[in-house]
């Protein structure tokens, strides 16, 4: 079900009969089986690829200019951070409408602490995360333990946090932020070492990631053989390694040839890998899928459904605070109107990325792909100077097409 960047999804496809000696036709069959199994996710990945190619052509190559790729990451980072948390909420069978307002509120809180009270920024950062956690916990408590529907609780939260933001800021925009905090939203990794025309640390990080991903794959394959489980044929395995390497190298080189990797990309990377791992491998992650997929069955299996729901909302609060800091730092000011409709973008990202209204389905990678589809649409249309009126219409259509395709595909396969 879940597939992550460094995942074993082809291993999840029916293994070939002949181990490493699969023929070309058998391989094709395997690839097709894998595709069918994860139609939703691969479908969106392919759609994202097509979008990139289309805009690359339409913008005469501007889309993939190193500077623009850097921009794309910076512009979308906070939506992606929110989408990660939102994916958890939706998998658990809930919704969170309050994250946009909460984002604004934590940003405003950071501004009050650092600008008005001159607190050191690391202290402010910790306090902001704590406020986010508290807000998430409060909402989570009402939803999980008192049984008030999440739609209602977070709709109330959406109104309340927006109002509190305006109170904190007294309707004004507050800034600028100390350097350290600014860097979080706009900064790049430092330049060190000899002049190579490329950004050295970014290159090193890229290579490190590449090595890690490949080693992880090889290790998994070895473990599977150790447990005498069937594994994907060698050729297909190599093909997969090549594909992963190519993707990592391309992004690394693009970023390294401009100012290097944005700091926020590093943060985002850690979150994606971390949450991907939790959702796939941690008992906690499995329990989220279980309560979203079939709550009564999960209860009868001894899953502590209330605690899990509570933690999912607490987590959403923390991620909203992270996003709030990033937004404020990037704009270098806290504004009462920050984060408007971010919740809707995060929700749309999750659904484009394969979440289901009824819960139990979805992956972190899916949320990221969904967020990137929206991000590339935004960025590409901006480059083409499409008006915001049409941008909204087109994004709405993208959501409809993605989910419509999913529904159609499910009906066709009769499930």
């Amino acid at each position: 079900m879940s597939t992550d960047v460094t995942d074993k999804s082809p291993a999840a496809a029916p293994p070939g009969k002949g181990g490493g000696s699969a023929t070309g036709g058998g391989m094709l069959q395997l690839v097709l089986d894998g595709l069918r199994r994860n139609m939703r996710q691969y479908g969106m990945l392919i759609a994202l690829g097509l979008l990139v190619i289309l805009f690359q052509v339409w913008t005469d190559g501007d889309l993939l200019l190193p500077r623009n790729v850097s921009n794309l990451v910076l512009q979308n980072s906070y939506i992606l951070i929110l989408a990660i948390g939102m994916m958890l909420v939706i998998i658990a069978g809930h919704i969170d409408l309050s994250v946009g307002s909460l984002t604004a509120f934590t940003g405003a809180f950071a501004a009050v602490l650092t600008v008005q009270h001159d607190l050191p920024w690391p202290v402010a950062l910790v306090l902001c995360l704590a406020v986010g956690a508290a807000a998430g916990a409060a909402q989570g408590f009402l939803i999980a333990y008192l049984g008030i529907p999440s739609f209602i609780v977070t709709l109330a939260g959406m109104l309340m946090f927006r109002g509190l933001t305006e109170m904190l800021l007294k309707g004004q925009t507050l800034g600028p932020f100390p350097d350290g905090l600014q860097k979080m939203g706009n900064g790049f990794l430092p330049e060190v070492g000899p002049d190579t025309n490329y950004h050295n640390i970014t290159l090193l990080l890229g290579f490190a990631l590449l090595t890690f991903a490949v080693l992880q794959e090889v290790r998994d394959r070895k473990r599977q053989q150790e447990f005498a489980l069937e594994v994907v044929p060698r050729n297909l395995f190599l093909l997969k390694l090549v594909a992963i390497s190519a993707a990592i190298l391309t992004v690394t080189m693009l970023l390294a040839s401009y100012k290097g990797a944005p700091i926020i990309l590093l943060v985002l990377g850690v979150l994606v890998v971390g949450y991907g791992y939790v959702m796939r491998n941690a008992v906690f992650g499995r329990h989220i899928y279980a309560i979203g997929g079939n709550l009564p069955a999960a209860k009868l299996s001894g899953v502590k459904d209330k605690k899990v729901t509570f933690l999912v909302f607490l987590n959403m609060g923390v991620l909203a605070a992270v996003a709030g800091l990033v937004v404020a730092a990037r704009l270098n000011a806290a504004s009462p109107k920050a984060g408007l409709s971010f919740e809707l973008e995060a929700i749309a990202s999750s659904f484009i990325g394969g979440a289901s209204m009824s819960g139990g389905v979805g992956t972190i990678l899916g949320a990221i792909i969904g967020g990137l589809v929206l991000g590339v649409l935004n960025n590409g249309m901006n480059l083409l100077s499409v008006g915001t009126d049409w941008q909204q219409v087109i994004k709405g259509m993208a959501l409809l097409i993605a989910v419509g395709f999913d529904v159609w595909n499910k009906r066709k396969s009769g499930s």
Partner: protein
Amino acid sequence: MAGPVLEMRSIVKTFPGVKALSDVTLTVRQGEVHAICGENGAGKSTLMKVLSGVHPHGSYEGDILFEGETVRFKDIRASEQHGIVIIHQELALSPYLSLAENIFLGNEHAKGGFINWRETLRHATELLRRVGLTDHPETRVTDIGVGKQQLVEIAKALSKKVKLLILDEPTAALNDEDSDKLLDLILELKKQGITSIIISHKLNEIRKVADSVTIIRDGHSIETLDVKAPETTEDRIISGMVGRDLDHRFPERTPHEAEKGAAPALQIRDWTVHHPIDQQRKVVDGVSIEVRRGEIVGIAGLMGAGRTELAMSVFGRSYGRYAGGTVLKDGKEIRTKTVAEAVDHGIAYVTEDRKHYGLNLIDTINRNISLTALSKVAKRGVVDEQQERQVSEGYRKSMNIKAPTVFEPVGKLSGGNQQKVVLSKWIFAGPDVLILDEPTRGIDVGAKFEIYTVIDQLAAQGKAVVFISSELPELLGMCDRIYTMAAGRLTGEFPRAEATQEVLMRQMTKDKEVTR
């Protein structure tokens, strides 16, 4: 005696993989109350669904003659136009609408799309009087009791000019007083010339209201008896319901000599549970049972006997409102207030409703099997996926789960294979006591045998097994000892040697005044 109003001839109805009705013939005379009885799953409800058009013409074989004409209903509306109205076991009222609105739902007194309230209220009041209700027609359905709701259903039927009223276990959810009222009403309607078919397995009820009874068994109509005739005794009806021989459908099983000295693996003492909503009703009433290691103990009972409620309330208070009783494991009292506590004490409950309570249908075999005991394949909260996969592959092979890999979603498996996944899941949890609730419901004969074999092996390994079932042959074929329950009470306990289908059925159909 009047002639037949309804004839159903050689009705055959198949569902994918199951033949629900093989050959059923039913003749109901004008103006009588005709009872239909048989075990759970015998095909009673399916037959009524065929009659009322829930299963439309063309989806079954055979003919239906109503008032002398052949009828072919394409949906419920068509059968209602002929005056055939079915009242299902689960009430179909809209709780937040008024009695009057419910009575005329889909059949409103209206002109040009606007409701004529005056006529609606007048007519509703009249219909409510006819069923003996004095409540105001603008009362909301949710504000009256279940017993009255059942009567509102009948008022709704009367508004449709009913000629043949079908009631599917109408008293299953009612207390004694409400049941009596309902039965009196059926007799009253009979005087007004309305023919009724009543599905029931409460023999005293049948004796009270019915003129004749048709017995259905394994999808065949066995016989129709005249209830008023002196030779139609309760024993006569029971032998008709159960009369079939045990063939070789069970694994060879040497009855286990349960170790005598040690305390029973599980003891339940004086367990009482109230209905979650209707708190006056005792769903389980002072039940005490015990099971030893290596023993398979059956609990026999018909629908509404309180077996599932007993099991689920013991398993982490997952049903109803606890009202007293203790649970002992190996002679020591234990807390089973939450499912996690019950599981920690080595108790497993395998639900009768695997789709709603047993499995996450959209998830894989792999993850369904590991869910309850994830910590067994995890270190510090992190699941070792290879080990997990190895475990579930092991169950796929040993339980013979028919699926290409363990990454298949369980929703795509057949009922039998889904049941094997649920069993695997709980066996993997490593319990000492397994409570199996209707473990072979809705699965084919071959898969049943496999599941019986697994149950036998579990007992042989020294697990204590509680086997809840309404199929008597399987209890007689598998159990060392059998308890019977009726209306929330324990009504008997029989060692394997003394138990026969007739003896058990007698205790299962025992009513309250008989036990007390």
